[in-house]
């Protein structure tokens, strides 16, 4: 269900998050001008229900683990 305007890397991230967290809403965008070094991720999933925002973010960090380490940064918005 990944939209077709995502580039390869965006799609990889999208799929990884999709499989792991089964979101009802998910957006992934390269905000490093196409360099693949910074992403904006917006994710809504029932898995976040009852979790404080910081735990929601840590869950995403876990899923994207190794990737994040190679990026310059990430902008993350989570919703239950």
């Amino acid at each position, binding site marked *: 269900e990944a939209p077709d305007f995502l580039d390869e890397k965006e799609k990889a991230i999208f799929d990884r998050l999709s499989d792991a967290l089964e979101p009802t809403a998910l957006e992934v965008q390269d905000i490093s001008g196409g360099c693949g070094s910074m992403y904006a991720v917006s994710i809504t999933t029932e898995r976040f229900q009852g979790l404080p925002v*910081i735990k929601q*973010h840590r869950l995403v960090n876990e899923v994207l683990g190794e990737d*994040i380490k190679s990026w310059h940064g990430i902008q993350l918005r989570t919703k239950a």
Partner: protein
Amino acid sequence: MILRTGIQAAFRQTAARPLATKVLARSTRLTPLQIRLLSTETKAAIDKAVSTSPVVLFMKGTPDTPQCGYSRATIQILGVQGVDPAKFTAFNVLEDEELRSGIKEYSDWPTIPQLYVEKDFVGGCDILLSMHQDGSLAKLLEEKNVLVPAEDMPPAKEK
């Protein structure tokens, strides 16, 4: 609109402090595994750092001269909230590579800036921004008594 410009300016001038014990030159050779894990000295140094003040921020650059948009945004948020500069310390991770990588292991958090309030990790810029917007940050800072007392605030300026 209340402009707390006096407080914000004083806040930004809080000099960033170097890490108490700069854990730089090692004389012993370390195996790759040891290098990756948080060394006991670095952990101890960071333990000490997060205890310096009630509010501790690990950022890129200094409060007066942030070197990154997210660090700058975080400083602005803390300034607008009216955090007492006397209860605040900022550490510049760009000055110390060990701190820069150490704090990410220590907090188990991949990015800078990182805010600690009373030694508890609160979050990074995204989290602080949403807490700022929904009022939970103001609540936290009030509870922890780290805001500038009301009498010290400059008079409200009308726009």
